[in-house]
């Protein structure tokens, strides 16, 4: 074990990443299950371990508002939130993206109210999927740490200049203690590099106006540009991942495939549940079952071609959604993947499994049950119920 391997919670790992990134400004407000991150960072500030101007705002709305001001001023800016905090800052989340401000924000996934609940699901970040932010999902504390560092490079790339959310699961990852490999401070400093300002407010020689009134004669063109910009971030995400692998030895892509190439059936699932699923895959593979897993890492921009292609050889696939889209035909991950699969003639049979809302546990038997169901679908070619709820009392 290298000297930088420590047993640590996801929140402390993310806070440590922020300490090493050492942003110019951080503006944040505490909310469970993100609170420990803000507390840890406050200690770094109190001990003089960062140069960061820490703005202890009175709400998440002001957190994102101050981030927008600080990023427009011209420097590296971070915040972090969860659930209701993200919902409260929603208006400004959109403004940050449309102003092309490279803010990086860990979002510790938690169920949105109501009723109020502090445990994990993905309804918070999924609600923000159309806000124009990039979204990276993390399986565990190591990925939360790695994604936070990579997010800075992606956001600040001159071809991107967009804000990035880094998700990890509330309590499961945020409070669970895991072994995490930290990079040296120097290595992180060199990797993220110096901030390159782009149209800063703090240049009196070049005054400019941020946030003008933009009506029917220009707004649409600006939105069109936004659509292009986020699409163009995809190769940058991959470049940054390659460079990150060089310093860490840990490979990252748009998604992770696990025993997928020769699989007949597979599960697609985000974040910590992918970890549990890997266990099940190993057990079932040992029994000769050809099962696999696809764990999306990048949800925005959505790698629809790559994911659809990676799934195209399957007989049946289950897409697991840890959030619902009330009144829609399935959860957000399902609708996007099913729609993407239309690109490739042969579409595997597919079902949507909505699970784990409000922190409801999902265990290995549940997942094995999904694989068994897929097996039956593959054999019969029949889907009894397309959209299903797993682990709920009906």
């Amino acid at each position, binding site marked *: 074990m290298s000297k930088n391997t420590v047993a640590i919670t996801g929140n402390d790992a993310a806070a440590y990443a922020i300490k090493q990134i050492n942003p110019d400004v951080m*503006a944040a407000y505490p909310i469970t299950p993100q609170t420990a991150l803000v507390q840890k960072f406050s200690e770094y500030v109190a001990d003089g371990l960062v140069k960061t*101007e820490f703005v202890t705002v009175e709400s998440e709305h002001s957190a994102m*508002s*101050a981030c927008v001001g600080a990023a427009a001023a011209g420097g590296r800016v971070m915040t972090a939130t969860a659930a209701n905090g993200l919902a409260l800052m929603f*208006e400004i989340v959109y403004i940050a993206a449309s102003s092309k401000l490279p803010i990086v924000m860990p979002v510790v996934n938690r169920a949105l109210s109501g009723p109020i609940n502090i445990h994990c699901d993905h309804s918070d970040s999924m609600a923000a999927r159309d806000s124009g932010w990039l979204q990276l999902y993390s399986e565990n504390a190591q990925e939360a740490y790695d994604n936070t560092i990579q997010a800075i490079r992606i956001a600040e790339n001159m071809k991107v200049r967009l804000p990035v959310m880094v998700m990890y699961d509330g309590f499961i990852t945020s409070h669970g203690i895991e072994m995490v490999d930290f990079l040296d401070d120097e290595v992180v400093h060199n990797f993220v590099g110096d901030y390159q300002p782009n149209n800063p407010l*703090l240049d009196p020689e070049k*005054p400019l*106006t941020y*946030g*003008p009134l933009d009506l029917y004669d220009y707004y649409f063109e600006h939105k069109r540009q936004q659509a292009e910009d986020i699409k163009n971030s995809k190769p940058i995400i991959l470049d940054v991942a390659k460079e990150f692998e060089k310093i860490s030895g840990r490979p990252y892509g748009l998604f992770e495939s696990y025993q997928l190439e020769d699989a007949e059936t597979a599960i697609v699932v985000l974040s910590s549940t992918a970890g549990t699923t890997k266990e099940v895959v190993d057990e079932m593979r040992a029994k000769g079952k050809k099962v696999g897993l696809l764990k999306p890492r990048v949800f925005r921009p959505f790698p629809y071609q790559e994911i659809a292609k990676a799934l195209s050889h399957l007989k049946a696939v289950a897409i697991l959604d840890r959030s619902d889209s009330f009144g829609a035909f399935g959860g957000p991950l399902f609708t996007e993947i099913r729609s993407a699969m239309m690109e490739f003639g042969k579409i595997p049979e597919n079902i949507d499994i909505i699970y784990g809302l409000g922190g409801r546990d999902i265990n290995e038997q549940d997942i094995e049950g999904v694989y068994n169901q897929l097996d039956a679908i593959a054999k019969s070619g029949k889907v009894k119920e397309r959209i299903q709820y797993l682990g709920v009392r009906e």
Partner: protein
Amino acid sequence: MAKLKEVSKKQDILSSGHRLCAGCGASIAVRQILSACDDPVVVASATGCLEVATTIYPYTSWRSSFIHNAFENAAATISGVEAMYQSLKKQGKIDKEMKFIAFGGDGGTYDIGLQSLSGALERGHDFVYVCYDNEAYMNTGIQRSSATPRGVWTTTSPCGEVIPGKTQYRKDLTGIIAAHKIPYVAQASIWRWSDLIDKAHKAFYTKGPAFLNVLSPCPRGWRFPSEKTIKMAKLSVQTNFWPLYEVENGKWKLNYKPKERKPVTEWMEPQGRYKNALRPENKQLVEEIQKDIDDNWERLLILCGEK
């Protein structure tokens, strides 16, 4: 004291050609205030008349750097700009002296933006916040705010068969801000331009947060002819409706005392929004409004050590 000759030589940061109404008090307030700043300044504005009429893409009326974020967060936004300035200055990445100012209407300040403002003041950022108070949500078509005075017609406090316009008195925002115990708080008028510019100068050059509340007559929403803007500002002060005072490091000081205060009806009569309140059957309402003004004035005299 500000000298007209010197002030008029300065280039306006808010250029002409903006689309605020003729006679808009807000643009006069902004120009007077910004003329008091001798350093480069970053301006933030809340959504409202000032912002929509000065930044219609692809044009801008601002010669300084300017940021509009949303309606309720001008204070939080400028606090972020200021925090970045402090950070970069500490790191030696910037050495210029710069100033930071946010403008919000009464809606963006008394109502929806009060929390954001209170937070930024409490945190002690080095910035100036100006409320250009035109006593209603003008940009969206004259809706009542908590700064709208009692008896006034607006589109959400219309004069109906049973309710005669706004029934509540206005909120004492300047008092609320003074209770934050920030270094400098003042109430000012575009009619007393020299007093306003002096106050703005103090606000810019006081370390820490400073707040100015400036009554900004609105011909459109108050229903008076656009050439009477300064006259309206004058009447508001002479009737004690809008007293001029400042609170410097906790010390209250009265800046203007009319020889003889004019009756409130002189302030009300030229304004169409008070038409209903001035009907003979509403005599008691006017008496109550007058009493409220006189009571507030008495309290202010005590706070300012004039009594």
